[in-house]
């Protein structure tokens, strides 16, 4: 405090103008901190503190059915989770859902983005239509698809897609397909919008020049559009991969984790909320958190090298 009041006096004689600017800069900084503080504090309290508490709980034996037996058990909850076949089964299931849905979304999303970018008419209706899956409640989307595949009430059965007595939601492969379908249907629009933003950054002149040089549409797409969009694609993939890895709503409504379609989030939910085993469940929570950090770190690294490359080339 003393330093701040003393400084202007000291610098007053040699450079009065400069002191005034620092004063203003200091006031500006103070205002900025005041303005940012509430949001930062809210984020810290509601995510930072609970994740710390989850780490603490994961080191305890803490089952709400026997709250008196709460005690410190070190890493034993982690070894219980990491040595159980259920955890690894669920990791596999989650990985399958994540990879399949993100891959399909990328292709479909790119197609929709190209339609919105290049269509000679009807861009408005397309935009309006794809915002419906984006806006719809995931639980509602999951019910819609569950009832579409319902053996008695559904409409898919008996069409060319499915035999008369097929019941996809009663076996593993079928359930996974329907979960992936629901995820893809609901989130492809988001992917398409992110890719559309990337597409609009590709300058038309490059396409015109390549056209003059005799490049075909397909060549131009793979040689010009894709490389220039790489950062946008990676950002879209990062967000969708993290999102898909946390898949909960659609799987919960479609199967509830039955037929070996339990995802890691559903496992965490079951242990924490249904079995109220907060110690073991928190270990699952923390492991999911670590997995998400690893996925994010991987993408950030790839993204870093790709933008560096691009800067080097240009």
């Amino acid at each position, binding site marked *: 405090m003393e330093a701040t009041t003393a400084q202007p006096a000291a610098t007053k004689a040699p450079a009065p103008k400069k002191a005034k600017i620092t004063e203003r800069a200091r006031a500006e900084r103070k205002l900025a901190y005041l303005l940012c503080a509430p949001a930062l504090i809210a984020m810290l309290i509601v995510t930072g503190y609970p*994740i710390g508490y989850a780490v603490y709980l994961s080191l305890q034996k803490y089952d709400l059915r026997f709250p008196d037996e709460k005690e410190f058990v070190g890493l034993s909850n982690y070894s219980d989770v990491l040595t159980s076949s259920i955890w690894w089964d669920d990791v596999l299931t989650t990985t399958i859902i994540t990879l399949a849905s993100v891959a399909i979304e990328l292709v479909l999303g790119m197609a929709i983005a190209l339609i919105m970018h290049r269509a*000679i008419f009807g861009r408005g209706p397309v935009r309006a239509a794809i915002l419906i899956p984006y806006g*719809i409640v995931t639980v509602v*989307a999951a*019910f819609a698809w569950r*009832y579409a595949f319902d053996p*008695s009430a559904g409409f898919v059965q008996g069409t060319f897609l499915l035999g008369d007595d097929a019941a996809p939601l009663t076996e593993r492969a079928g359930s996974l397909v329907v979960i992936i379908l629901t995820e893809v249907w609901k989130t492809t629009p988001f992917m398409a919008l992110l890719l559309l933003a990337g597409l609009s950054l590709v300058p038309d002149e490059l396409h015109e020049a390549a056209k003059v040089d005799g490049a075909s549409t397909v060549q131009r797409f793979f040689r010009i559009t894709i490389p220039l969009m790489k950062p946008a694609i990676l950002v879209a993939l990062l*967000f969708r991969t993290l999102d898909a890895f946390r898949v*909960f709503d659609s799987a919960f409504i479609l199967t509830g984790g039955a037929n070996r379609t339990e995802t890691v989030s559903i496992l965490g939910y079951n242990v924490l909320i249904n079995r109220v085993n907060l110690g073991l*469940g928190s270990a699952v929570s923390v492991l999911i958190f670590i997995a998400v950090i690893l996925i994010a770190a991987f993408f950030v690294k790839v993204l870093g090298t790709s933008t560096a490359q691009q800067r080097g080339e240009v």
Partner: protein
Amino acid sequence: MTHTPREKAFWSIAILVVILYALIPVAWITSLSLKSPDQVADGKFFSGFSFENYDQIFSENTFNAALVNSLGIAAIATLISIALASMAAYALARLNFAGKAVILSGALAVAMFPPISIVGSLFDLWRAIGLYDTWPGLILPYMTFTLPLAIYTLSAFFREIPWELEQAAQVDGATPFQAFRKVIVPLAAPGVFTAAILVFIFAWNDFLFANTLTSTTDAQTVPAALAFFSGGSRFTEPIGAISAAAVVVTIPIIIMVLIFQRRIVAGLTAGAVKG
């Protein structure tokens, strides 16, 4: 520019496919909601109009309460989130200060944060401090998890505002408050509004927190109520009633999305290009 019939046919089909893709599940659940119990299993997309299911859900306290909870909680979370995010976004867009990176990376970390990792902690903490099964118990996580989206969208919008106009108005004799209210507020309103729509959609959609942090009609929102809706019968799934409830929560979203489609697209892409 003229286009060949082949081009026209190609784009017509492409557009039609996208529209069908988006609408089929919505059409299906709407059609189920309008079926009477003996039509539910007919597998048709249209079997007439029966409002039995709607009568049923609106006569149930569970659904009405859930609807009020959903609206109230999402609206309050949106207001608070937008207020906090506007302040931060103004600082990010307009002021020079060290620590911008802290705010931006903090927001990015929260945007990537897996909610399942804290539901156990919140469940335990909320029960200890009396927030379990209350509105604030859901408002707190919703406003927090929507802050990154709101901050990114708003700071992208705020950067586009010609702030010199504020000084210009003051030179013309307006007081600072008048300059803010008559010049800046109208310019910033569309961005704020867009961010509010995106935040509202997020809060309205949430299932995980609603499912773990509530248990009764005191705070249960529609997605959570839907998942555990038994419709009076334990043995047959109330497909018609669930479909009707699903349609009711979808209608406000579809109306918003159709009216504000340009803004929503601008908001989503503004945040993305930046990030």
